[in-house]
């Protein structure tokens, strides 16, 4: 599904290397968690994958189903099946949530050479999916994320994910700013999308999200590299002991 090979990334504006050789392989239907201390490069990885401006790839490649996506525009990556759930979803005054979603769904279908979804079919689908995320009609009518609470914003991200049906979902600290109930709701939304084929990369600081979204593989990132990979037990180890021990272990090796 996704293969990141020796990815080196620096900031465009200043001479600062953020990623220093990231290697990662996510298979079909797998859920990978990336954990790590602040500033380790987790969010940068998600931005670089989705094609945000401001970063320069100096080495390496990212293959999605064998295709190097680093050459593609963000919208082309989306149409190819990549989805990033933002840590801080953007507010867009003046654009209705529903209009936004329909435009996105149809733009992707068009890019893939599929027919656009009719207004009725779209409505039917979005109503059903919104309901399971406890997103009411009012929230669909409001401008994108404007005046949404933290929990509403994250649920709205998951709704977009559900509507766009990507192959690979990247969740960038989706748990930040959520209370226990909201985290449960969001996790249920994500789990509903696990169908054995769709893959996930879950970026988080904390083990608690991984209680709800159970990962197959856990990676620890530090200083622009993945320094350790293991099973779900690795997340527990971090939760109990913090990152310090792990980092020391790597330095010694």
């Amino acid at each position, binding site marked *: 599904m996704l293969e990141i090979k020796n990815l080196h990334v620096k900031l465009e504006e200043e001479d600062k290397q953020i990623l220093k050789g990231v290697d990662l392989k996510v298979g079909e239907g797998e859920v990978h968690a990336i954990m790590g201390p602040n500033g380790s490069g987790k969010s940068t990885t998600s931005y670089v994958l989705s094609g945000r*401006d401001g970063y320069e790839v100096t080495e390496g490649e990212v293959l999605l189903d064998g295709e190097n996506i680093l050459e593609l525009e963000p919208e082309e990556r*989306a149409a190819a099946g990549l989805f990033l759930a*933002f840590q801080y979803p*953007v507010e867009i005054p003046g*654009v209705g949530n529903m209009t936004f979603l329909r435009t*996105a769904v149809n*733009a*992707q279908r068009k*890019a893939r050479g599929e027919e656009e979804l009719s207004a009725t079919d779209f409505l039917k689908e979005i109503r059903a999916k919104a309901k399971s995320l406890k997103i009411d009609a009012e929230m669909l009518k409001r401008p994108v994320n404007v005046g949404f609470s933290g929990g509403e914003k994250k649920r709205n991200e998951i709704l977009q994910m559900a509507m*766009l049906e990507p192959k690979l979902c990247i969740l960038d600290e989706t748990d930040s700013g959520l209370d226990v109930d909201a985290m449960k709701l969001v996790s249920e939304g994500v789990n509903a999308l696990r169908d054995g084929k769709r893959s996930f990369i879950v970026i988080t600081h904390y083990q608690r999200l991984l209680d709800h979204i159970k990962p197959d593989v856990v990676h620890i990132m530090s200083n622009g590299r993945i320094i350790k990979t293991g099973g779900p037990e690795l997340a527990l180890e971090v939760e109990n002991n913090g990152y310090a021990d792990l980092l020391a272990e790597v330095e010694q090796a």
Partner: protein
Amino acid sequence: MKRAELKQRKLDATSARVEGMTLPAGAAWAEALRQDALNRLLAMGLPQGRDEYWRWTRPDTLNADAPKLATVFVAKEAPVFSGIDRLKIVFVDGVFDAEASDALDGENLEIMRLSDALSADIHWVKDAYGVQEKKAQTPVERPFATLNTAFATDGVVIRATGKVAKPVSLIYLHRNETSDAILHHVIRVEEGAELTVLENGPAAARFNKVMEVEVADKAAFHHVRAQGRDHERRAVTHIFGTVGQEALFKSFTMTANGVLTRNEVVLDIQGDDSMAHVAGAALGDGDFHHDDTVFITHDAERCESRQVFKKVLRNGAKGVFQGKILVKAGAQKTDGYQISQGLLLDGDSQFLAKPELEIYADDVACSHGSTVGAIDEDALFYLRSRGVPTAEATDLLTLAFLAEAIEEIEDEAIAEDILHRLEGWLTRRRAG
């Protein structure tokens, strides 16, 4: 050059300009009014680039003896408002076309051609023609409106005596590449009456238009205008309005294209508990110049006024906003709002704004804001990350930027039509 010398040159230029023009004939009272306007014009002079009020918009092509040529634009799609059930009044290059127009009558409605009204002895027209224009010359001179009062060759007078079901639609066709049109409309919405006036089309190569509107107590006036797409046209327009007690005045203007547009709106809120809203959405590409100059006076208690002006500018287009709210002493509990915003789609375009508040009452809430900026990069990336291509995402954000102005149109079908035109303009630009 000395001040007096400058003034003299201006007056000489004005004399030269009007020398070849003749005051239209009419009833004695009308001829006297026109002569008075001409005298006022000769005393103040037509504006020049040095005049403060014309600092950002060059008046010279409006002053010139003859208009510059403007190619006639032929649209592929049906004109704006085509789908709206309305009473059509057509002008071709500034001349009323009876054949193309509907019969000038309707329930609760009196309509007459201006030349007929100024040849007759109609009480309310006598008290209205040029009256607001004259009053609005202080504190700021508006000489093109005075020129209009003196020389207007056509137009309509409209009186609504009750709720008028169909909008009155003034359609300005442009056929002659060098036409020079001066139209003057006088509108009175009587107590408790309701009227919607639509305007569309470029009218002429050069167009000078005045609309004087009196909205009586408990009356409502809605105005929606779409200025023609003929890019080389030039227009200077004035709307003068008085608003009575518990009355409503709403005006919205869409401008797409046009090398020169100066739209002035001067409103006087005279009755308590009234509302006056003026809004505009302008889209310009290349040598587009668009100027909204607005002056709203609050002279009554508990009134609300809004000015919402948005301009989308690209490829060196230029937008101007000069807006003022004047709250007179005693106009307590005034709620005034003014926003002017320029969205620059590239680094070559310009938005110039002069928002002003002048307040003499001590218990008022007035806010104003003026911003200029580019498309929000974060919003753009967010849309693209969801699969929306850059051009489409930019259009979506552009329409979002205009939304606050479009929301000022009360009638949903008309608002939908306007939105559709704005989308069309953006799509065509994208197509190349």
